């Protein structure tokens, strides 16, 4: 018996690894997704090690070294209109965009998954929840966010809240759709015939089986969230100065387009790269998590 459990244990590890490995292997086959992963990793590293990677604080001004161009001594990405180091601002901005992305997507998922599960599983709740979602859905996203910010006030935290509320209907729909199709699967029926409780079925059997679309949604949504945050900051509804939020940096730099275009172009490229990365990784994950995809 002892030998058996030992061998069983080693099997366990092998198998666990292989499911994870499988997806990872598939992702690695997708060159674009690898590029995305690299960009995201760089962003995460920048975010974590920001203080080590910069020699200035992102909000330290030097009014006598304003609008230095790219490649200036001591400021390889130049400085902005207050003489702040662009490189530190970009690096600290990476932190913000990651946090905002995770925060808003996380909150949105929380709401969306619960509502989606309930409405997909219980027919009776379905009508009410989905009508509510339709209501939110009929607002163009930015507008919804603007209204929410108008009520809550302008701040990055409120942007996170606004974007997460805006993600809820999307997420709920996706989850509901997956629940509806998963609910019909025979293994769920099998579970019901065993006499499992609804809660157990929902959280132990349906939820793990719809993680793939949720993960894909979350990754894609990170991209949208980052983009929307910057759009809101651009409209002056997001990050408060001197927060080095990339969208706010673009907005601030826009007036200097003609004299110091790097103030706009650098954060613009940063946003684009990161959003691109999340999009390609999302795409790659979708393909990798879809067992029906033939890889060729």
């Amino acid at each position: 018996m002892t030998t058996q459990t030992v061998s069983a244990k080693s099997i366990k590890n092998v198998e666990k690894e292989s499911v994870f490995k499988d997806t990872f292997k598939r992702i690695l086959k997708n060159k674009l997704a690898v590029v995305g992963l690299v960009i995201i990793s760089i962003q995460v590293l920048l975010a974590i090690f920001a203080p080590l990677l910069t020699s200035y604080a992102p909000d330290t001004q030097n009014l006598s070294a304003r609008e230095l161009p790219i490649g200036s001594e001591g400021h390889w990405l130049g400085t902005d209109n207050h003489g702040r180091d662009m490189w530190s601002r970009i690096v600290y901005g990476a932190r913000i965009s990651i946090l905002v992305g995770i925060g808003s997507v996380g909150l949105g998922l929380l709401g969306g998954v619960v509502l989606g599960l309930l409405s997909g599983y219980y027919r009776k709740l379905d009508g009410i929840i989905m009508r509510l979602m339709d209501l939110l859905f009929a607002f163009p996203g930015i507008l919804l966010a603007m209204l929410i910010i108008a009520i809550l006030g302008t701040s990055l935290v409120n942007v996170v809240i606004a974007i997460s509320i805006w993600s809820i209907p999307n997420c709920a729909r996706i989850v509901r759709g997956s629940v509806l199709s998963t609910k019909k699967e025979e293994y769920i029926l099998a579970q019901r015939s065993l006499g499992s409780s609804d809660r157990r079925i929902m959280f132990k059997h349906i939820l793990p089986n719809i993680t793939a679309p949720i993960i894909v949604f979350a990754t894609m949504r990170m991209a949208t969230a980052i983009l929307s945050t910057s759009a809101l900051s651009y409209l002056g509804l997001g990050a408060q100065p001197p927060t080095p939020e990339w969208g706010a940096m673009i907005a601030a730099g826009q007036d200097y387009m003609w004299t110091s275009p790097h103030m706009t172009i650098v954060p613009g490229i940063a946003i684009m790269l990161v959003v691109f990365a999340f999009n390609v990784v999302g795409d790659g994950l979708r393909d990798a998590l879809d067992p029906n995809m033939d890889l060729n």
Partner: protein
Amino acid sequence: MSENQAILKLDQLNKHFPVRGGLLKRVQNHVYAVNDVSIEVDEGDSVGIVGESGCGKSTLGRTILRLEEPTSGEIWFKGENITDLSERKLKKFKHDMQMIFQDPFASLDPRQRIGDTIEEPFVIYTNLSARERKEKAIKLLREVGLDETHYYKYPHQFSGGQRQRIGIARAIALNPEMIVCDEAVSALDVSVQAQVIKLLKELQDEYDLTYLFISHDLGVVRHFCNKVLVMYLGNMVEWAPVDELFDNPIHPYTEALLSAIPRPVPGNKREKIQLRGDLPSPSDPPTGCPFHTRCPIATEVCRQVKPEWREVTPNHFVACHERG
């Protein structure tokens, strides 16, 4: 345990699915999936339920297990009426009734290890410790011809036959008395199919199981069952012990069905009874005898009046105006 005591009794069981539509999603119509089914199943029986696709076999099976709420009629299990029991009270009976599904690739939770899948019934119904559960699960795995190395694997790592064995292991985990097999072997290749049928038979001998064996493969039914219910468009057509039914089919539908089966004997070109047309829609069933639109011997009466359910010879029931 005394033989020949009815473990399951269905009395005028109906299951109609509402079809919604229109502006306010009102019920516009019904799919008459199961109509007035009344049979008695004895302990130790293997009852075959056969019929064409969409004739309500699966729905009947699910309704019996109360996975679908019956529209009307009664279900008696082990002498008790379980038709209207609440979920809580039903749990006791669910323990004794299990189900095996058709699709070996869909009936196992792809994200759950085989071990967890098999332990699931213990988690729901018992307070066994993880260790005890695992021991039991491994015992079950052995019983269905697998071994403990499979315990930590995921369903996709198994072949169809192996998966079906896992499904069986899960179904017998709680020592049930009745198992509904919904097309349990249809998706398997013949060589594997034979393995699974053999396993099911062995288990029946060992645990005194009663099977409701839903299938459209009459060959398998003949081989596996001792009683057969033929259904057509949600209605009972014929109900008899297996040899009686295959040797002396009475209903023209049963006859046609039997004659249509290709026999694995070359050169044996028998005269087939060809049925006209297709199965009518179960949401718009014909009046009178449901089979009259395709019946070679239908008369005016068949078009008007629904035939009665009659015992033509002992234990041989039929619903037909013309025969018997």
